[in-house]
């Protein structure tokens, strides 16, 4: 089973991202959306949670949500792929199941 985990909360406000990563198994994907996109930024107190897991888990972040919040793509952690809405749909279709971390 290959699961997609979506996270829509800021990692500096809630532990949804941290918990999603802890519960994601090798080969799973994590997609950061809405306030979850703050988790994709370099240089935050929580950046290491993502960068430490980047070999085992594929990370994606919603581009439109980055733009809304004024986050330049140059400031996201290396290895995270930026997707748009159709990329979101493709990710959902590609995985056997989707789990939302709210």
């Amino acid at each position: 089973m290959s699961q997609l985990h979506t996270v829509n909360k800021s990692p500096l406000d809630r532990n949804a991202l941290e918990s999603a990563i802890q519960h994601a198994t090798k080969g799973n994907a994590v997609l950061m959306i809405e306030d979850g996109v703050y988790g994709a930024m370099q240089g935050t107190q929580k950046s290491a949670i993502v960068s430490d897991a980047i070999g085992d888990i594929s990370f994606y972040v919603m581009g439109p949500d980055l733009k809304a919040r004024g986050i330049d793509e140059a400031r996201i952690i290396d290895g995270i792929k930026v997707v748009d809405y159709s990329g979101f749909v493709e990710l959902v279709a590609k995985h056997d199941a989707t789990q939302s971390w709210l």
Partner: protein
Amino acid sequence: MSTKKFLYVNRKAPYGTIYALESLEVVLIGAAFEQDVSLAFLDDGVYQLAKGQSTEEVGMKNFSPTYRALGDYDVNKIYVEQESLDARGLTLDDLQPLTYEDEDDDWAEKDSIKVVSTAEMAEIMEQSDVVMSF
């Protein structure tokens, strides 16, 4: 009626929840009553002031330009917590400048944003008569 010191505390990121927009609207409504108003941005609230917000693709209203009108509403004490910026890898340069024109200084344009430490923020909270949290 004596003037009370109002402090609006903003701790949430914009767009993901309604808190940031609600707070801004309450501040603007409250400012019409000419009270002594201060705004505090800490924790994820500092994200509200990020420059370069562009919401076209998410289909939401971009309310970040409205913060720039606060000076017109005589809301010019805007405190941003240093520790909150640090935790998010942000500096003052990542925030949009907010200014006001100082009536007592020949309408000179001045910065409204002041970066303060957690200890200073605690003192600002302590000295407020009314604290509204968002």
